[in-house]
């Protein structure tokens, strides 16, 4: 069994390993579980007042939800391509794909601001009712994760510019990409949960 030190995760006898740093995966797992709990809380709340939740959900825009999903998916794909380029030591490509991932990713922030301000102007706030409480909290917490992800991607971009594209860097980019994919993964569930239960 090869034991890689802090850089990289352990490779099992069958050659299986997690991408990036195993510790980040603890974080990813914990966060995913936390959101699972959020889904549960929302669902339980919905079972208590289905008509309230159903009527409130009508006020969300499916189009915006689809757009958000597409943005995150595309950003994720670009990140996956960046990781792939890093494995080939292609610095230029890594930088370009990462710039793309960040650029596309930032569109998510734009649509979110647009969406939130529209809702607030229409009079739907965190305190309007239970549905909107969950809507703002779940998408808000998700958005915080998104912001942290963007920061991670920006740091990775700087590293891609300044550091060698070596094994050390690959662990960083794999870890960052894994976290970023988690942000995407969580939204994949949030979209039907919040927007489509009508």
């Amino acid at each position, binding site marked *: 069994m090869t034991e890689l030190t802090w850089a990289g995760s352990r490779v*099992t006898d069958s*050659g*299986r*390993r*997690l*991408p990036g740093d195993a510790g980040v*995966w603890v974080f990813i*797992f914990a966060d*995913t*579980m936390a959101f*699972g709990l959020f*889904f*549960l809380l929302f*669902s*339980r709340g*919905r*079972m208590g007042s*289905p008509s309230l939740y159903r009527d409130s959900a009508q006020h969300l825009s*499916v*189009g915006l*939800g*689809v757009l958000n*999903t*597409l943005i995150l*998916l*595309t950003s*994720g*794909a670009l*990140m*996956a*391509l960046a990781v*792939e380029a890093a*494995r*080939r030591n292609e610095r230029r490509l890594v930088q370009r794909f990462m710039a793309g991932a960040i650029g596309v990713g930032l569109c998510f922030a734009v649509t979110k601001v647009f969406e939130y301000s529209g809702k607030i102007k229409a009079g739907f706030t965190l305190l309007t009712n239970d549905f909107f409480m969950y809507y703002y909290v779940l998408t808000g917490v998700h958005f915080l994760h998104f912001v942290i992800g963007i920061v991670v991607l920006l740091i990775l971009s700087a590293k891609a510019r300044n550091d060698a594209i070596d094994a050390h860097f690959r662990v960083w980019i794999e870890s960052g*990409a*894994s976290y970023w*994919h*988690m942000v*995407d*993964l969580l939204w*994949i*569930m949030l*979209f*039907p*949960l919040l*927007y*489509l*239960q*009508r």
Partner: protein
Amino acid sequence: MTARRHSDARSLVIRVWALLAGATLVVGWLAEGRHVEPRVALTVALAVAAFKARLVLLHYMELRHAPLGWRLAFEAWALAAAGGILAAYWAAA
């Protein structure tokens, strides 16, 4: 990694993206277009969500090559999440 493996890896990313995007658009169309009852649209949407989650987990997050415990834990999560939401939805309907 060989050149061929690299271009395979790249085309995999793109193919997965196309699947994910396509599935998203189909679900959006179903939900918005009122072609089916909202209940049906939601059920399809959650099944699709589980499918999309699995794609992201296995191919983007590379759990296909990860120790089985991790892979199973996350796949179970995706199934439980989608299934749980769906069950609660039908229970309330």
